[in-house]
């Protein structure tokens, strides 16, 4: 369970999150929608512990622990996963090598054994094809030369292998063609479980047709300004965010 209370965060002099409240119980999928620049990606970075984002007030607890007290890698080991809006390239590091290093680092942090090479290969072979990830993409440098859609699918592969407890998906649907969208949604749905919470950031109702959320939130100027069922997404698709802009003005 994720509980965010009155979260204020800034980058440099700019306060971007301005008293955000959000609770995601275990097993639920929550979607966040909101205009460009409202702070959605910022929220995902603050939750995952990116340096340079300073929390000035409020609290975040995850399964009862104070998430903000942990370093980024410790949060990852505790089960926080962020599928990046813009996945990063790491030239020269084979995708496979990266996946394995990540898995083992998390295992080590949790005091578990490293995964053996055969087990790792088996796991990757089981998960990669479903996401349309070829052998070639596994051998290439992390995200290097991947198309926009390939990068996003690669994020979901990492998520599937790392089996996090909190999945934050930042615009994973942007840049995906219709078929890829279904592939990704299928991959995400396969990970839905009573023990796992998901926060899905998107601009489009379309994704939510495939990943059906339990709750939809509207974010505006660094706060959650409205929450509702999945039908809220449909309503937003119709009317846009104009109403909220007026509220805030």
């Amino acid at each position: 369970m994720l509980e965010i209370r009155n979260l204020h965060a800034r980058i440099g002099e700019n306060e971007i999150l301005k008293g955000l409240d959000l609770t995601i119980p275990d097993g639920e999928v929550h979607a966040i929608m909101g205009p460009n620049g409202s702070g959605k990606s910022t929220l995902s970075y603050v939750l995952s512990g990116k340096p340079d984002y300073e929390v000035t007030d409020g609290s975040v607890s995850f399964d009862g622990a104070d998430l903000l007290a942990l370093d980024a890698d410790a949060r990852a080991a505790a089960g926080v996963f962020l599928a990046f809006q813009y996945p990063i390239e790491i030239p020269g590091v084979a995708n496979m090598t990266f996946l394995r290093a990540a898995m083992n680092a998390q295992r080590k942090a949790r005091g578990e054994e490293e995964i053996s090479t055969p087990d790792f290969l088996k796991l990757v072979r089981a998960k990669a094809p479903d996401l349309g990830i070829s052998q070639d993409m596994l051998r290439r440098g992390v995200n290097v030369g991947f198309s926009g859609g390939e990068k996003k699918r690669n994020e979901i592969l990492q998520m599937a292998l790392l089996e996090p407890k909190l999945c934050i998906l930042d615009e994973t649907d942007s840049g995906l063609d219709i078929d890829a969208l279904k592939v990704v949604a299928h991959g995400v749905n396969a990970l839905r479980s009573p023990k796992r919470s998901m926060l899905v950031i998107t601009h489009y109702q379309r994704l939510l047709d495939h990943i059906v959320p339990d709750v939809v939130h509207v974010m505006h100027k660094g706060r959650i300004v409205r929450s509702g069922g999945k039908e809220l997404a449909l309503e937003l698709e119709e009317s846009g965010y104009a109403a909220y802009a007026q509220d805030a003005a």
Partner: protein
Amino acid sequence: MPAVQETVERVRAIDVDQYKYGFVTDIESEKAPKGLSEDTVRYISARKNEPEWMLEWRLDAYRRWLTMEEPTWARVSYPKIDFQDYYYYSAPKAAPKSIDEIDPEILKTYEKLGIPLRERDALLGIQREGGSKVAVDAVFDSVSVATTFKEELAKAGVIFMPISEAIREHPELVKKYLGSVVPVSDNFYATLNSAVFSDGSFVYVPKGVRCPMELSTYFRINERNTGQFERTLIIADEGAYVSYLEGCTAPQRDENQLHAAVVELVAMKDAEIKYSTVQNWYPGDKDGKGGIYNFVTKRGDCRGDNSKISWTQVETGSAITWKYPSCILRGDNSQGEFYSIAISNGHQQVDSGTKMIHLGKNTSSRIISKGIAAGHSDNTYRGLVSAHRKATGARNFTNCDSLLIGDLCGAHTVPYMEAKNASAQFEHEATTSKISEDQLFYCLQRGLSQEEAVALIVNGFVRDVLQQLPMEFAVEAQKLIAVSLEGSVG
């Protein structure tokens, strides 16, 4: 080499019970008087039972050295060296008797590198007193391994032995080639080396022979004590091939602060020499105190047509590194390569690079240099590519990438190009980058620690060069890179 060899002989000469009381003190006693004089040179030559001509060669070098000035052009700074304050012959060094006498930092590194216990003791030069079994076993092990190799090499006609032995057993080869690539008067440190060199390897691969193994494992076990003034000479005769691997990924304990090695390679017509180095001498403590000064002259001569010499180096140790493995492309169509990873951390200073001297027609060279600077270190790539008037069709490709970790270090690229004929084609690419915060965060978000993340990104950065190393060595080098960069961020 001499230390081990001698140890072996001593151990053989006595039975094991006597041995444990016997040789430690004996071994410690071999030392030339401090300082450098003609007498020192004579002492060294005598200790090695050298023929007269070798002594004369050394004395000639010594006399020239007296007239030379220490070079100051490199981007390194250190207190003035008092050359009279060193021992020029002290092999083997006084051995520590137990693991407790070794710097715990070095031990930690060994653990991280996963160096087997026995090999570790051998590298540290530990001679155990009561339980002397370890040292003996290690020694005996290396003897048997060495013998197997020797037989196989002899079958192929390859000569591979300490240079001190070659001077006695193959004087005609040594006379012909020693100093023929790096002349006695080449530079201050090379001249010093010529006067006082302690030992090193000698390799001769006869015509048309492909050396049946990497000359590496042998070296690794046997040549850990070559000392401060190593001298290596490798000759690949017409159509021969040899791959030679110097060094070891474990940090070596050594009381000698000043190191000045000379390596000469000669490739005759159609021959190829591949020379790989991993240098991990002690870099000094966290304040930069006590590290090794490493002034090396390495040069290869592509003497015959269609010959090829390839240098690959991974430099992670030493307080000061001054090193430019070079190729003289004399034969037509000859090729020179230089692949380098130079890592500096803490207060290390690295000034390294290469020289590609194009003399023959249609010669080509390729330089891939990856410099990584962290901590307070300074990392300079210095490269010279030149084409002689007659070197028509000379081609060079240089790629020089620097990676900075943190704000307190520096990376510098100093390329010199001299084309004395219009048909030469030189290409130079250089980049300097920093490990991006975004890359680091991406790795951390996946659960890697800061240090793991840096090591991973750096290993990606140097991948092109790592691939040039023999497989087994590349894996070790990769681990070594991680260890060298510890504490570089956060």
